[in-house]
């Protein structure tokens, strides 16, 4: 056993098998754990903050106290409110629909608003059909915002999902190797495209383009916004779908082709169905993207909180509402709380979407490839 030990060579002895304490291992493990916990904590705290700010809506008594304080602070906030006003009149330039005149009027009376704007929001008023946060008699009905968001999402998905999925199918099943090497990174680059640029493009180019085709009145509306959102959602849906399609085992494709199926039949009947969980997840994440998208919504939808099924009417989305109004709202005001409530709702939606995507995909895949009948 006393053979000279070569440097760096592992010798199998009782001694060498003894547990050793490795400093570097220990430290790196602790650091990684620490950082992970820190980031999780920060995220959780952000959510706690958002929820907490939304909470007073449901708590009348606390609300009263805040109100008193607020009236005292009124003077200080006055200056800021003015600023907010100029901001929002800046916005009117793109929100040029006639529907916005009421908003302008409201904002002209911004000073009154601060006093009256803290009317109690209840479940009932939240379920109202009017979103008029800055009027003499402010109303915080979320219904038009929901309708707007859903409308936009639907329009965006009607465009984005088929285009993205077909493109992914082409890239994964038909494109020659060299072409795939170009398509995939190119579309993935688009995912990082600043949404303000897409919004700008929608505002300047697409709005007029579609107006010429469909001949509607307001340049900015749900349709323009939805199509612009589709541009933002396509890269996400494409990438995830493409990954799902290329992850389908080659043996499937070969089996199908060996049975005399054409490439289209193989793609349609074998590859696509085998990848459905992934594609479903891709669509959910695409929806999440549209839900949370603020800049494009602000710039391209017209921002009037209307309830209608007409795709060429202006809409206002949840996210855009926060984006447009948070800057001009009074701290602790009902309006302020409602905006945080909207934020919380957005969070809950997106969280559920992601969770659904995750669990659905995992569950389905496990079933599919381990033989439990689907």
């Amino acid at each position, binding site marked *: 056993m006393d053979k000279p030990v070569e440097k760096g060579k592992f010798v199998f002895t009782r001694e060498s098998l003894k547990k050793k304490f490795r400093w570097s291992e220990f430290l790196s493990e602790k650091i990684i754990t620490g950082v992970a916990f820190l980031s999780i904590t920060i995220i959780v705290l952000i959510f706690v903050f958002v929820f907490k700010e939304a909470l007073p809506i449901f708590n009348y008594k606390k609300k009263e106290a805040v109100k008193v304080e607020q009236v005292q602070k009124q003077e200080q906030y006055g200056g800021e409110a003015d600023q907010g006003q100029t901001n929002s009149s800046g916005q009117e330039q793109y929100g040029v629909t006639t529907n916005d005149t009421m908003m302008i009027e409201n904002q002209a009376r911004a000073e009154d608003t601060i006093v009256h704007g803290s009317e109690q929001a209840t479940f009932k008023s939240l379920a109202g059909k009017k979103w008029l946060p800055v009027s003499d008699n402010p109303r915080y009905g979320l219904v038009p915002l929901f309708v707007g968001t859903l409308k936009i999402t639907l329009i965006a998905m009607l465009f984005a999902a088929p285009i993205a999925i077909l493109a992914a199918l082409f890239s994964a099943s038909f494109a*020659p*190797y060299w072409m795939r090497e170009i398509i995939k990174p190119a579309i993935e680059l688009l995912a990082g495209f600043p949404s303000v640029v897409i919004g700008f493009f929608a505002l300047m180019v697409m709005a007029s383009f579609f107006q010429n085709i469909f001949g509607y009145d307001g340049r900015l509306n749900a349709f323009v916004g939805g199509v612009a959102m589709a541009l933002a959602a396509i890269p996400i849906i494409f990438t995830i779908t493409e990954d799902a399609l290329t992850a389908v*085992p080659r*043996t*499937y*494709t*070969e*089996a*199908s*082709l*060996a*049975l*005399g*199926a*054409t490439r289209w*039949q193989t793609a349609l*009947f*074998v590859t696509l*169905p*085998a990848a459905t969980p992934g594609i479903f997840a891709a669509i959910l994440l695409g929806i999440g993207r549209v839900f949370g998208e603020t800049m494009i919504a602000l710039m391209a939808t017209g921002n009037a909180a209307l309830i209608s099924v007409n795709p060429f009417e202006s809409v206002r989305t949840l996210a855009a509402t926060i984006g447009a109004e948070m800057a001009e709202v009074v701290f602790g005001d009902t309006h302020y709380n409602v905006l945080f409530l909207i934020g919380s709702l957005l969070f809950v939606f997106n969280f559920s979407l992601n969770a659904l995507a995750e669990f659905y995909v995992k569950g389905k895949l496990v079933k*599919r*490839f*381990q*033989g*439990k*009948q*689907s």
Partner: protein
Amino acid sequence: MKEIKIKTRDLTLYYGPKMALNSISIEIPEKEVTAFIGPSGCGKSTFLRTLNRMNDLIPNVRITGEVLVDSLNIYDKQIDVVNLRKKVGMVFQKSNPFAKSIFENVAYGPRINGINNKTKLEEIVETSLKKAFIWEEVKDRLNDSAMALSGGQQQRMCIARTLAVEPEIILMDEPASALDPISTAKIEELIFELKKNYTIVIVTHNMQQAARVSDLTAFFYLGELIEFGKTKKIFTTPDKKHTEEYITGRFG
């Protein structure tokens, strides 16, 4: 001697710059079992896959020479690959059922050929599964996922799936290499039965299997066809020293 079903002439194949098959000429008779043997990497699978043009899927493959199936050059520009593959079916080394029910797996081939009549499909599925000796084991669970079958059952179901398209030639690439002895015996029995109606080409690493199931044996080495002849002769009195060394296991 039976009619020649497949014939290759100076078939040479390159993967990019690398030559994988060197001028292979062989004549495979109909309704017999022909076995390809040889050490790993010698080109057996590659050669098998040229017979139904599965190599078309791989980028940078270059092929010269001819492959004649029923005296037609299948690499001719006029040939429709899709129809060729209906005629020349393939069973893979690793069983590869689709993530669908057993019924849908077997019905897939007929379906893409435009058969949609339910009774007709049921009939095809039943006869195919019977021909593949697996009907009794699965007849009560046709709607269960094929993924839930055992490896051996999956492989026989894959054979049934191939049979459902009514090919004339069946190419098998080590169909039993991942199976236990009992499943292997079942597959061999099945091959024996199938050769009454089909021309079968099988790649195997198992010498006993080649000796048991095949009528003819081809020995490949480094992309070349070294020796081809009656299995009995190859396994008892081969002409080439190489062949003898390989079969007796004295091979480097």
